[in-house]
């Protein structure tokens, strides 16, 4: 490997944080908005270029578990090192982030209130996300995980929007605080497990590579794995601790919803794999049935809840809960097909959900309502928006040709190998998804056009650009998923707990 390969991961982390720092020190705030936005877009594209480099150089026939490894000592007393490296799973997640980050910056172009602070927080958030995906040291994994979660509070509470229902309302401050307290509460469980692993292994090291080799005591695995499963699962929207997620998605401004549902929730599922399943195979086996049960509830309950929502963004929020259920189901199979499907689903759902939130945001911005009861027949006035929403909807309900189909198929195949009954249940869940997605499409876009919406503008240029790219990715991955599947499987086959 050449010199650039050794430092590309560090660069990937440093870039967003350096951008945030540069923005903090950027003099003036109101009159120089445009240069700041261009600067952020350039940073986002630069980080995407780095990820493309990693994708190109990643060797999925290599056989060693982690690639692009770089190790730096950081605190000798606790054996903490700034260790970075990626496997196939992390690479897939990097690709997702590299798509969502520029998309979010572009969609956020419309934000004009305090947009300097907005961009700073977005950069911090993305730096945290990249860091979590590529850290091979538990201290830093946890460090970046917290960084990814915390800017959400200000992003939602300041730039978000409150929702009024007939009988109650959800203020944005409430949603923001609920989200933070839930997630930080979950991170307490993660923190306890990390420290317990450090002490139990007695290596004076937080290095994941070391800890994955330890082979913890079976009884130890049995009590620590559930902590990790629930702690990380919380961020992934694991039922019954998912309630923060629809509230948070809905209250957040569009680009934050995109990053949040698109990328952030994946951190949770990623954590279950990286820290949970990879270090404690026996714990994972013992608790897989519970994860399976909760995941199944996620799928069914999420889709039923989505069906009964009257708010456009709440529908998408609950559909995220439902789709993350497939991820948990796939992980719980502990079968190569299922886990590969789960990771592919993480990727595909991230792109799809980002697309949906872009479109819902466009509707809300021009119509100032998200009420499905009022919105109707938008296809006539915003045909481009309708087209892309149909694409996202079809991907979401698993129509062949889109990435969602491939991912869910793999999860189902994994399930039928291991727990066929749950597989049948999951297929029913996919059916319910079809019902609410088609109903939503029919009502909001293809119903009678209400006179109120006749002058509604179609997507703006930046939104068209984002929507077009995201839709194209859904289609390309749906039609030719082989490269991505190979990369993911390269990561999955190193996990000792995964068979088949």
């Amino acid at each position, binding site marked *: 490997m050449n010199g650039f390969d050794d430092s590309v991961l560090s660069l990937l982390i440093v870039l967003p944080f350096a951008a945030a720092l540069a923005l903090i020190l950027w003099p003036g705030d109101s009159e120089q908005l445009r240069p700041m936005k261009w600067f952020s877009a350039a940073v986002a594209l630069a980080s995407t270029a780095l990820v493309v480099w990693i994708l190109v150089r990643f060797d999925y026939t290599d056989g060693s578990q982690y690639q692009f490894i770089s190790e730096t000592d*950081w605190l*000798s*007393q606790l054996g903490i090192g700034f260790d970075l490296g990626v496997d196939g799973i992390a690479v897939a997640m990097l690709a997702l982030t590299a798509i969502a980050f520029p998309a979010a910056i572009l969609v956020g172009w419309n934000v004009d209130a305090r947009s300097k602070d907005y961009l700073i927080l977005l950069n911090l958030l993305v730096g945290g996300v990249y860091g979590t995906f590529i850290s091979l040291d538990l201290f830093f994994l946890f460090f*970046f995980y917290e960084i990814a979660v915390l800017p959400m509070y200000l992003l939602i509470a300041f730039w978000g929007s409150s929702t009024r229902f007939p009988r109650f309302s959800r203020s944005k401050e409430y949603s923001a605080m609920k989200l*933070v*307290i839930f997630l930080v509460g979950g991170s*307490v469980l993660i923190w*306890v497990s990390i*420290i317990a692993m450090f*002490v139990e292994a007695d290596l004076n090291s937080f290095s994941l590579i070391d800890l994955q080799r330890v082979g913890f005591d079976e009884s130890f695995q049995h009590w620590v794995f559930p902590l990790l499963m629930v702690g990380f699962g919380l961020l992934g929207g694991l039922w019954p601790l998912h309630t923060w997620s629809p509230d948070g998605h809905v209250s957040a401004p569009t680009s934050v919803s995109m990053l949040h549902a698109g990328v952030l929730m994946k951190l949770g599922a990623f954590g279950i794999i990286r820290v949970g399943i990879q270090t404690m195979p026996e714990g994972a086996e013992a608790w897989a049935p519970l994860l399976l049960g909760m995941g199944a509830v996620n799928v069914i309950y999420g889709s039923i809840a989505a069906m009964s929502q009257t708010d456009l963004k709440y529908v998408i929020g609950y559909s995220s809960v439902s789709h993350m259920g497939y991820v948990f189901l796939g992980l719980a199979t502990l079968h190569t097909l299922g886990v590969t499907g789960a990771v592919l689903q993480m990727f595909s759902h991230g792109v799809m959900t980002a697309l949906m939130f872009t479109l819902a945001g466009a509707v809300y911005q021009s119509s100032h309502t998200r009420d499905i009861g009022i919105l109707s027949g938008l296809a006539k006035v915003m045909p481009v928006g309708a087209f892309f929403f149909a694409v996202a909807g079809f991907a979401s309900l698993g129509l062949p040709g889109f990435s969602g189909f491939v991912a869910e198929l793999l999860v189902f195949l994994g399930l039928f190998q291991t727990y066929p009954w749950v597989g049948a249940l999951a297929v029913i869940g996919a059916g319910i998804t079809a019902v609410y997605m088609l109903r939503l499409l029919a009502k909001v876009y293809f119903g009678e056009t209400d006179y109120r919406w006749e002058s509604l503008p179609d997507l703006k240029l930046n939104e068209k650009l984002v929507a077009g790219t995201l839709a194209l990715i859904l289609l390309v991955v749906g039609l030719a998923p082989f490269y991505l599947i190979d990369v993911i499987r390269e990561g999955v086959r190193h996990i000792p707990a995964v068979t088949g």
Partner: protein
Amino acid sequence: MSVNFSLLIPEYVLVGVAFAVLTVDFLIPRRYRIHLSWLAAAGLIVSAVVVLVYRWDTAETLYDGLFIADKFGLFFFVFLTVLTAVIVLISHDYVRKHIRQPGEFYALMVFAAVGMVGMAQAGELLTAFVSLELLSFSLYVLVALRRENANGNEAGVKYIVLGAFSSAILLYGISMVWGATGTTYYSGISEHLAANDGNLDSTMILGFALILAGLGFKIAAAPFHMWAPDVYQGAPTPITAFLAVASKAAAFALILRLFTMALMPALEEWQVLVAVLAVTTMVMGNLVAIVQTNIKRMLAYSSVGQVGFLLVGIAALGQIEGGAVIPNALASDAVMLHLVGYAFANLAAFTTVIAVYNHLGTDELSAYSGLAKRSPYLALVMAVALFSLAGLPFFVGFLTKFYLFTAAAEAGLLWIAGIAMAASVVSLYYYLMVVKRMYIDDIPDSESESDSTPLTIQIPSLSWILLGALLVGTVLLGVYPQPLADAVGAATGAILPGA
């Protein structure tokens, strides 16, 4: 017995500075007296430099072990004097506006520093006690210095009554220990305990419990914390910062040395007691902080919560393995690290509080609404300080809490670490509420209409620089802690040689 009095040169310098401030105060015209802060701060820094040069590699005792000059003492000497110097500089603008006796104010602060340095280096109970009293007496006066203010009077009376009460308890405990062991030297107590295989007779247990209660008052550990909010609120704000940061650091220096050098063999007897104290303190402090409406009271309860975290480290100073006591160096490291991190963040917070008070004349939390519009810089520093106190990454608080809880787990106290983390989540709630006020809420209408106070806050250049330094320190230690960790490790090596 030859006594090397020159070992005490740094202490002589410190005492000299205190008297110099008092003397110069007499000699110069009244209007120049506010500039005594420069003299006091420079003197404190000089003494820190002197001790660094003069005792860099010293490991000696004086008067048979009454006074111990080692790396641990060196660390705390430098830490405490620099801390006092920073607080002196923070006070500058406050004293100019609100305090009529600058000479006494600064001289007493230096005297307090002498007491604190003594607490960190005492190797015997009565020496430690006298040093503690020197600190306390200075603080009794400083707390009550705003005589015209009703809250200040209440604070002064409360502090002196409860302070004297706790000193009596502490002294009573010391006498019990003397009765049981026949010595007040740390080394003697340790030998006595080791000879009895760590088993304590009832007099010793009573004495130890009284000492713990007495010190508990001084560091405001629950249930001995009731004085703290009132005193913090009523005292001049720089003195509140001093109480919250410096005097606590000194008390923990005393506790660390006492518990490692004297009481370690009896770990089994006191570990649970300290652990319970830690749990009540952090739960109590963090829960009650939620409902506060005054920023100084909120910070008071928050610092009670932080004391709880520090006590977790004290409880984790060792563990029993196969009947033998194994010292845990990580815990002692962690306590010192957390003290340093806490000092940076808390001083940044209090400097902001002073700047806001100097401008708006109030410490109510409602005054912080829309602070980001009044002064983005102040709001940023306050947010960083609070985030660091809450233990969020990038800031030093994250690392020190991580270190602290890892050390606790290392000593087999994972359950306490879990409670501490949960308490930490609670603290995030009330810190975030302040951040919400500053960044999301608007400036209250009534104030923006009145034209007597300008909307934006002008920060004096001295405060601006101090705030910047504290901000940079909070972030820098959070991302590059190795040098500090090494310094702390050397200090631990002096009090826990076997670990």
